[in-house]
């Protein structure tokens, strides 16, 4: 089994600050982490490779700092890491990102591609399906359990729905996007960290790809962000400390005043 996990480096959300003057995101000094859902993607890749034998390749498209994230995946046990990084990719929206990823992944011919449900910076959850489409393979989103058939030709998974889940079977290759409850990502072991140091991270540039230039970066991105602002701060609420009896009355009054009850 050849497995690819797509990961993205994102800012730690609890540290994200808004510049009060410019109303833009302060990225400086904000620590980066692997998108939490993508850690589950890597963990599942490792689990499958250990159980059914195979190899796991981790891929990210991003700035050169994203190497750190890839290193961590190697330390967790991934076999190979690829960093797709070039000025030509700057300004990519989800469609251009997915296109670029698809060019690299096509060359690898994997059986299974695992993405996170969404990246916590953009929260779009679009790259997975847009990647599957451009690879021409089926997708299954919101996956919370994975099994591979004995002949390693099919995958059977649980896909979360609004009121439960569906058990779905699909022939490989397929792309899945995964939820946090799928597994518990492991910590890199000391041995893993040492082994990762020796592994090379492959860097892919735009010239290495047979890309349609008009599909890359800002040019290949149909969506345009025209404005960014901070949402209206929450109106100062009321904080009260009363006897339980009166506290309950306060809530009832509130609900009635707001015509909710």
């Amino acid at each position, binding site marked *: 089994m050849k497995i690819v996990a797509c990961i993205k480096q994102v800012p730690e*959300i*609890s540290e*994200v600050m*808004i510049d009060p003057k410019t109303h*833009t*995101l302060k990225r400086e000094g904000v620590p980066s982490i692997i998108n939490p*859902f993508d850690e589950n993607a890597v963990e599942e890749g490792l689990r499958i490779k250990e159980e059914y034998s195979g190899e796991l390749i981790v891929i990210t498209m991003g700035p050169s700092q994203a190497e750190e994230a890839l290193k961590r995946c190697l330390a967790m046990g991934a076999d190979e890491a690829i960093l797709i990084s070039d000025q030509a990719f700057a300004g990519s*929206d*989800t*469609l251009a990102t*997915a296109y670029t990823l698809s060019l690299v992944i096509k060359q690898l011919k994997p059986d299974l591609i695992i993405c996170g449900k969404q990246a916590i*910076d953009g*929260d*779009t*959850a*679009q*790259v*997975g*399906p847009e*990647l*599957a489409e451009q690879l021409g393979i*089926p*997708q*299954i*989103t*919101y996956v919370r359990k994975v099994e591979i058939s004995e002949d390693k030709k099919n995958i059977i998974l649980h896909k979360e729905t*609004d*009121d*439960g*889940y569906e058990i*779905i*079977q699909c*022939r490989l290759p397929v792309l899945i996007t995964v*939820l*946090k*409850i799928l597994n518990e990502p492991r910590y890199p072991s000391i041995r893993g960290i040492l082994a990762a140091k020796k592994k090379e991270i492959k860097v892919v540039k735009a010239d290495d790809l047979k890309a349609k230039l008009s599909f890359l970066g800002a040019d290949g*991105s*149909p*969506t*345009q*962000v*025209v404005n*960014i602002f*901070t*949402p209206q701060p929450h109106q100062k*609420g009321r*904080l*009260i*400390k*009363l006897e*339980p*009896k009166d506290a*309950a009355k*306060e809530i*009832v009054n*509130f*609900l009635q005043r*707001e015509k*909710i*009850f």
Partner: protein
Amino acid sequence: MAEIIVDKNKCNGCGKCVKLCPFGQITIVDKLARIDLGCTMCGVCQELCPTGAILIKRERLNAEDISNYQGVWVFIEQHQGKVKPVSLELLSKAKELTKKLSQELVAVLVGDEISYLTKDLSLYGVHKIYLIENKNLERYTTDAYAQILVGLISQYRPNILLMGATNTGRDLAPRVAARLRVGLTADCTDLDITKEGYLLQTRPAFGGNIMAQILCKYTRPQMATVRPNVFKKSQFCSNSLSPSPEIIKVEAKLNPLSIRTKILEVVKEVTEVANLEEANIIVSAGRGLGSPDNLYIVQDLARLLGAAVGGSRAIVDAGWLPHHQQVGQSGKTVAPELYIACGISGAIQHLVGMQTSKRIVAINKDLDAPIFKIATLGIVGDLFKVIPLLIEDLKKVKNK
């Protein structure tokens, strides 16, 4: 935007493409190839047409092309014959947009034996309904639904296409957008029309810490998924005077083999109203409840308010509630009219999933709990004392 065009001057009706199409989506009509609804734009016909008559165009549109795309479409999500509330909210909002654009409001209804649903939709001032019924469309699958939508869009060219940001909408929309090579904005919380006539899409990013406004100037349709609960359903009187919509039945040829995923089993885990994203009121429980045996306290309150029950990750991880009831960064993002947080501290990962709720009531015994920073009404107190009294009081009001 990608579109597939048959050059009438070059096509000689030889029919080679009919045999080649892996999806069986080409017919020869009057000695010309006709591309049918389920075309996936795979490109096989373009490559192999002996006269080079078939062309898939994937380019930026110029102003003239853009004016060929008309109408605001809403994908109506139905599940087992019931329309999702978010689809009706979208029709209501889309109606406003069509007025600003002077274009038609169109509903797209896909499923099996669901024509009776057109009645409900006609209340919303819909001009047209595209109705596609097929037994292979009974339950949602990405492959079948994407095929149908791409076909409809290529044929009828909408200006705007909106879907609910539900599990289904967020699975389907990016698949369709990528096939057409058009822009898509996820999870919008506001929509408007700019003075140039573009769809202005507003969406939260970084868990609601910033808002971004997005345009798709050069591709059509302009596609967006929209969060449930952000727009209000229109109210109308039952004898609404809006003229009944034109219902256009579109035949879909669907080869079951083109649906590559097979649903082996459908498992229901919830019986009560538990769909958090659509709930108007959510009562949410945290570790402050102490033990799963105390869950009944929030469940009783929820029942009384007609609310759905949610929870923090702490209690979902502990197995008190199933994962689809978890609110927060690694669970669901919700924005109900009212969110009642009971014994939840308000960690940032929880807040990003619920801070856009319209009203927040928090009950916590710790004055310094971060949840109070965003609460509309914060109650410092013991939930085991406050909530039972609250339930009693609410019952009294109800029985009056």
